[in-house]
């Protein structure tokens, strides 16, 4: 299996992009918009001029005295908006990359019946399949996918995500995906990197990012609740944190000073009555919103988002304004130091509510 190694710098408008990465199977870079994600792909494809080293195995694309042009780097880049040639038919688009396997690819991506159609006549999902077929027709050594699911509607997205998973496994190419959606990244890649302001904050398996987030941003990006507070004392393996809102929270993690308390929505339970359990953290509040996501229900209580099953949401008769208790175990929390990373205060979904109260 081939390996793409990239170690380069690229000055962007408001910061420098710096990245060192080895891609052997599938790596996804997640980050907010403007983090420099697309620029990573463009630098690897040679569409923007970076400084450093980019190589596919021992084939050097960028290095001292070497800067191959995009057509000399064997990349299959699928653009976010697909960038199909509007003046060419589906077949013309795919054949542009390489004529050898056109029919096979049209079949493989289920667009054989659309051979003569123009890109503007296609649905979003069809466009994406044509873009993938076109990129693969070039017989690339590396696959680069820019926000492969962002341009699709929610209904198509789930199906395409599954198809992409299968395709990537089948191709066995080093693949780099960039996306703003952590869930997509976790579903498609074995390794996920969090990119903020052109800097790789953490690189690990999706499980590692959730269980050991390196900083508050990574935590909030993986979908965790983040409560700001200060450590008051350690006692018998338990750390007591006084939240900015005044309430007390206990964690089995050890930390000092200003901390972010990380709790995942699926570790938060909702109850109507006060559960008298000392191992539980308890926050009381009104239900601010109830949102159905698949067969789960996301409930917002004060600064917390909880994810509960549909049945329990019905049993509790949760509606906006209901007074409930949100509880989570001390063992279900992580403490991450806030320290110097204060300036990258995460936006969504958890922290903002607290500061406002």
């Amino acid at each position, binding site marked *: 299996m081939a390996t793409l190694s990239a170690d380069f710098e690229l000055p962007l408008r408001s910061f420098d992009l710096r990245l060192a990465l080895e891609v052997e199977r599938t790596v996804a870079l997640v980050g907010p918009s403007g983090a420099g994600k697309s620029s990573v792909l463009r630098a690897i494809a040679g*569409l923007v001029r970076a400084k450093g080293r980019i190589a596919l195995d021992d084939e050097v694309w960028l290095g001292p005295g070497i800067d191959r042009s*995009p*057509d000399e780097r064997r990349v299959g880049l699928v*653009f976010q908006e697909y960038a199909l040639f*509007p003046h060419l038919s589906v077949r013309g688009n795919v054949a542009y*990359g390489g004529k050898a396997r056109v029919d096979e690819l049209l079949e493989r991506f289920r667009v054989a019946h659309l051979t003569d159609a123009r890109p503007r006549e296609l649905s979003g999902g069809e466009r994406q399949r044509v873009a993938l077929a076109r*990129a693969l027709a070039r017989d690339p050594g590396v696959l680069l996918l820019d926000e492969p699911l962002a341009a699709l509607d929610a209904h198509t997205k789930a199906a395409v995500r599954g198809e992409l998973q299968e395709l990537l496994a089948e191709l066995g190419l080093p693949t780099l995906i960039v996306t703003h959606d952590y869930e997509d990244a976790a579903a498609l890649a074995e390794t996920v990197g969090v990119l903020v302001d052109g800097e790789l904050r953490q690189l690990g398996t999706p499980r590692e990012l959730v269980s050991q987030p390196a900083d508050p941003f990574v935590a909030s990006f993986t979908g965790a609740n983040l409560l700001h507070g200060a450590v008051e004392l350690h006692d018998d393996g338990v750390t007591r944190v006084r939240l900015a809102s005044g309430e007390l929270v206990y964690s089995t993690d050890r930390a000092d000073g200003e901390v972010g308390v990380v709790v995942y929505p699926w570790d938060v339970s909702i109850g109507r009555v006060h559960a008298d359990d000392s191992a539980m953290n308890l926050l009381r509040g009104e239900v601010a919103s109830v949102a159905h996501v698949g067969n789960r229900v996301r409930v917002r209580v004060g600064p917390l988002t909880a994810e509960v099953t549909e049945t329990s949401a019905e049993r509790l008769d949760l509606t906006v304004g209901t007074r409930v208790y949100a509880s989570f175990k001390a063992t279900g929390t992580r403490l991450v130091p806030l320290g110097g990373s204060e300036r990258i205060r995460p936006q969504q979904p958890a922290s903002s509510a607290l500061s406002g109260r």
Partner: protein
Amino acid sequence: MRRRGLIVGGLAAVAAAVALAFLVLPVAAIFLRVPPGGLLHQLSSGVVTDALVVSAKTSVIAQALVLLFGTPLAYFLASRRFRGRAFVITLVELPLVLPPAVAGLGLLAAFSRAGLLGTSIPFTQTAVVLAVAFVSSPLYVRQGIAAFEAVDPDVVAASRTLGAGPTKTFFRVVLPLARSGLAAGEALAFARGLGEFGATIMFAGSLQGVTQTLPLAIYEQFAVNLDTAIAMGALLVVVSAALLAFLKVVLTWQPSRRTSSFLFARST
């Protein structure tokens, strides 16, 4: 209040009608003065056929040159960002606003025997070609810049990542996508070049069968035989109208893929 509104509305309608009539009247007059049969008869006179040949020949050569040299210039100005780009574009546009007499003077200053380049071009058919190219190319280049700028950079980048070099990318992707915008620019340039008068008469003179184009022949004939002049005028009206119609068709060709700003109102 309501009554005042009615009066204002009525006045506006009258003003609009006057403006429309004013614009239509001179064109209509050309066709109303001489009957169609007479027009055709006038067109067979020697002065007219000579002028027609000179106009056609010089226009075709001039526009071929405009396409050949103007297209790379437009692409260069559309795809590169450099210091002084705005200044260069302004220089390219300058001949558009230059008084034709000044354009003719400038061409003489550059190409006459005593001029900057010291050539024997003035008062030859080549001079007509140069005068036409000089005044009409800015229209093409300007429109060409807009057409090239409207091509999605991602589509160009996609071509490169698919293994196509800059040349293949230009001919297979950029040019086809800019095509309708370029055609519109060329139609404008052609129309402008066909009507060229001032710069041509100063730089090339008005020698029948050599440098006398249709507009120059009209000017000469209207003192001698007004009907012949009118016939040539009618011919130019028809050609200009055809160019304008072509332009509108080109600009509305692919409404989903706007490759140029609209210089004219769309007919539909």
